[in-house]
C-alpha cells in the first residue's frame, strides 16, 4: 500500500458483551498486519452492548474490508468507519509533574493554564494535571511541559468519539431486528 494514501480512520464497533470479542476484532487487524493506533472499549448507551473505538492508519479500500470482516463476526452488531471530520473526538492526557519544580518555575503553571488543562491532585512530591482534547493538543502540552524537564509520568487515553449524525444507528438497527426477528 502506498503510504501517502493512508489516513487515520476511526472504527466504531458495537458488539454483544460476551467473552472473546476483543480478540476477534483485533484478529482482523492482525491478519492484515495493520497496527491499531488506539483502542477504547466500554459499555455503550445500549444495555448489553459494548462500544469499541479503534483508530488505525489505512486506505479506504482496506478499512472498508476491515469493517466488513469485523461486522461479519456473529456477535458484532455493527462496524462502521469514519474520518475525523465525521466525528466529535476526544482523548485524555494525564501528566504527573514534580511538585518542587512546578513551585520553582511559574512558567509551568502558566503553560498549564494556557492549554486549559486542570490540576486534579497536589501534594508535596507531585502534581497531577489532566487535559481533554484532540490528540495534537494533548501531545503539545506534553512537549511544552517536557521542555521544563518536570514530567515524571505521562499517559494518553485511546480516542473516544461520537458521530456528528443525529441518530445512534445501532439502537435503530437492534429495534428493527427485535421487531422482525
Amino acid at each position, binding site marked *: 500500500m502506498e503510504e501517502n494514501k493512508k489516513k487515520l480512520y476511526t472504527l466504531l464497533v458495537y*458488539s*454483544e458483551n460476551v467473552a472473546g470479542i476483543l*480478540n*476477534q476484532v483485533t484478529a482482523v487487524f492482525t*491478519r492484515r498486519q495493520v497496527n491499531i493506533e488506539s483502542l477504547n472499549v466500554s459499555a455503550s448507551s445500549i444495555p448489553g452492548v459494548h462500544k469499541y473505538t479503534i483508530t488505525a492508519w489505512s486506505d479506504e479500500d482496506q478499512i472498508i474490508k476491515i469493517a*466488513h*470482516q469485523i461486522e461479519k463476526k456473529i456477535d458484532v*452488531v455493527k462496524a462502521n468507519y469514519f474520518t475525523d471530520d465525521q466525528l466529535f473526538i476526544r482523548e485524555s492526557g494525564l501528566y504527573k509533574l514534580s511538585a518542587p519544580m512546578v513551585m520553582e518555575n511559574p512558567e509551568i503553571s502558566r503553560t498549564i493554564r494556557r492549554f486549559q488543562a486542570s490540576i486534579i491532585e497536589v501534594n508535596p512530591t507531585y502534581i497531577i494535571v489532566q487535559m481533554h482534547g484532540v490528540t495534537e493538543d494533548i501531545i503539545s502540552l506534553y512537549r511544552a511541559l517536557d521542555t521544563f524537564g518536570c514530567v515524571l509520568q505521562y499517559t494518553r487515553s485511546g480516542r473516544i468519539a461520537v458521530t456528528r449524525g443525529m441518530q445512534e444507528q445501532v439502537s435503530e438497527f437492534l429495534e428493527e*431486528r427485535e421487531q422482525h426477528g
Partner: protein
Amino acid sequence: MLKDRITGSKALMRALQAEGVKTIFGYPGGSIMPVYDALFDYTRGEKKCFDHILVRHEQAATHAAEGYARVSGEVGVALVTSGPGVTNTLTGIADAMLDSTPIVVIAGQVPISALGTDAFQEVDLVGVAQPISKWSYQIRHAEDVAWAVSRAFYIARTGRPGPVVLDFAKNAQVEEIDWEPMKVNFVRSYVPYPKLDEKAVREAAELINNAKKPLALVGQGVELGNAQAELVKFLEKADIPAGRTMLGLSALPSNHPLNVGMLGMHGNYAVNLKEQECDVLIAIGMRFSDRVTGNLKTYAKQAKIIHLDIDRSEIDKNVKTDVAVVADCKESLPAITALLKENNHQGWRDSFRELDKKERQKVIEPAIHPKDGPLLMGEVVNAVAEQSPDDTILVTDVGQNQLFATRYFKYHHQRSICTSGGLGTMGYGMPAAIGATFAAPERTVCCFMGDGGFQMCIEELGTIMEQKAPVKMILMNNHYLGNVRQWQDMFWMRRKSFTKMMNPDYEQIAKGYGIAYEAISDRKDLAAAVERMLKTDGPFILECQIKEEDDVLPMTPPGMNVDDMKLEI
C-alpha cells in the same frame, strides 16, 4: 410437577437429536468421556438415534463431517476430546471455513476449575479456533447446553454456512440440570439473509438486458442456496453461457448447453479467455478466488461486474463490482430473472466453440484418449466418469488428482462434488468420501487420490473397513507429489526437491484392511477394472500406475493474467 433431571452430556444428546443429527464422526478421549458414556445408550437398542462412526484420527472426523455436509446439505458433526484431539481437527475447521461447509465440532475441555492451569490436555480452543471458525463457544455449565447447541447449528447452517466449535467443559458434562429444550432461530447481531435490494436487482437486470456478451460465473453458493433450478431459469431466459468454479461444478449439469466449463488456473480454455472479452460478468455465489482470477490488476477490466452473494464482505473484496446484489441467490436469481428479456446470444456462445476445439485437440483428447505410452490420470478419470451412474459423487484429494478429476468427471446431479477448494487440504479425500457414503448411502462415491494424499489420511482405511463404507478409491500412483513436481519443472528449473516418493505395497495394505484391491498399469485393462470396481459391493481400491511425470493442462501460471492460459508447456 416431576422435574426431568439429566446430566449435561445427556442434554447434549437431546439437543443433537432436536437438531436432527443422525450421524456423528468422532473419537473418544479423557475430557469427553461423560459424553461418550451418554452416547453409548443413544447408539444402540430402542433408544438408538445416532450412528457414531469411529474414525482413526480426529482430522478425519472433520473431513468426514464436511463430506457428509456437502452431500446431504445438513450440518456435519464431529465429536472429539480436548487438547490434541481437538488440535487435530483444526485443519478440518479451517477447510470448512474457506469452503463454507456447515459442520459443528464438539470437543471436550478440562473442567472450568482447571482452565488456565496448563492441565493435562488443556488447550485454549476458543482462542485458537476463533479466527478459523464462524463461531466458537465454551459451554461452561450444563444449563448452557440446549442454547449453545441450538445456536451452533443455527449459525453453522444459515447464511453463508461454516464451521462452529463448541468447547464443552468436563464439569458441564457431568452437572445435572432440569432439562428444558431450546430452539435458537434468531441472533440479533447476525443477519444471515440480507434483505434483497430491489434497486440493485433492477440495475443488474438492466445491465444483463443490454449485454452483448454476458458471462456467468457459478459458484458453490448456488448449491448452498439450493438454487440450481433458479440458476437454469436465469441462464436460459437471457441465454447466458456459464462457467463453474471447482466447488460449483455440480450446480449446473455438465451437459447443459449453456455450461462452458470450469473456471480457474486449470479450468477450461475458452471460459478463461472469455472472462477477458465479456461485457457483463455475473458472479453468482462465488468469491473470486485468486485461483479463478489470476492477476487481479488485469482481470475482466473490460466488463461490468455484477456480484450476487449472501456475504456482504465478499463484495469488492477482490474484484470491484458495478452492481452488488447481497442476498441468498435462491431469492435474488428469480427476482432478476423476472426482469430479464428473453434473449439470444448465439453468436457469442458460438465464439466459445473455436477455443473449445483447440483445447479438445491439444489437451483433452491426448489426456483422455491417448494412443500409446503409459496410463494417464485423465483417461482413468474419464473411464470412471463414463461407467459410473449419473448421480455418482466425485470426491477428490488435492493436487493433480483433483485437477484431472474435476476437469474430466461429469456432473449430472446436484451436490455431486466434494473437494477441498480453498484450503487445498491433502488427506481430505478419503475421510470426506467416508462422510459422503453416510450422507447418501444409495449413491456411488468415487474418490480420486494421489499417492501423496492417500497416505496422508491412510489410517482411515480402518474406518472404511469397520464401516464397510462403499468408497471406490482410485489411487493414481505416479510416485511423485505430482502437482509440486509440475511446478518445480515449470518454475523451479526442474529441481525436483523432495517430490519423488517411495511408496508402500498398497496391495499388502489393502489386504491388511480386508479391502478389495486391484492394480492396473495397462490401458487395455482399464475399462474392465473400473467395471469390476463399480460392481463390487463395498469399498474398493483401484491402484493405477500412471505416467510419472504428467502435467495438468491447460494452466494459467500463478499471478499471470487469466487469458495467459497455456495449452502446452
